[in-house]
């Protein structure tokens, strides 16, 4: 016998009221990152030894600039989801946990904004 109410079971949101959202978006971003990561690593490896102008030229192609924005944003989103779980696992002091959870979100957002700005600055 389950002690869960029928409404609670139908909603399927669990005690944190978040359901499987975190699990799901971690998987979706992971799948998106498979092609993006391989593309990024091998493109940059191919660029190695290239000077400032060669790299700028590469980034200014629209397809590259768009892919870079997708890569950096998806990676930072996936990173924020992962770091959140690590903090929840190991930081047991309630106040410190709350602060570091918020802090890591802000930090990821700042890096995201700065990276997109940099890409657009070069590409446009």
């Amino acid at each position, binding site marked *: 016998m389950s002690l869960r109410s029928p409404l609670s079971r139908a909603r399927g949101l669990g005690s944190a009221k978040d359901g499987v959202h975190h699990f799901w978006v971690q*998987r979706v971003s992971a799948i998106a990152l498979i092609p993006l990561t391989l593309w990024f690593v091998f493109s940059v490896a191919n660029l190695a030894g290239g000077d*400032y102008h060669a790299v700028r030229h590469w980034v200014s192609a629209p397809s590259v600039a768009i892919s870079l924005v997708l890569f950096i944003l998806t990676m930072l989103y996936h990173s924020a989801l992962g770091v959140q779980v690590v903090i929840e696992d190991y930081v047991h002091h309630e106040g410190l946990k709350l602060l570091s959870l918020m802090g890591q979100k802000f930090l990821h957002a700042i890096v995201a904004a700065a990276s997109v700005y*940099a890409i657009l600055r070069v590409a446009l």
Partner: protein
Amino acid sequence: MTTKTPVDNRPLSPFMLGQYYRFQWTSLLSIIHRVTGVGLSVGTLLVAAWLIALAMGPVVYADFAKHLTAWYGQVLLFGWTWALMYHLGNGIRHLFWDIGWGFDIKVAEKTGYAVVAASLLLTAAAWAVAYFL
């Protein structure tokens, strides 16, 4: 929200290793997955710094590139490449678990070896492209 601190001092998961927990190949890979994940979060700052340096002009970029091509920069980049390739490969292993495939211990051990081999091969391939192409 979680409850207050536990009343007794039971050992929690990361501190179980060694004393209470038998060494297993699969658990080692799991730990490496988390460690590389955290490492890559920091490594993302490197990618962002590279893009920002590129946007700031040739002088700043040349300075940044000087550090990346120095021995310590190359060691860092090599570590980043391997961590990325390992986390990618083991992430795919996790995705297969998510659809219910590969939970058998013998299979999980074998896919673990495959992931480590693939991460080394992909890292070697990326560096071969960087140095020889």
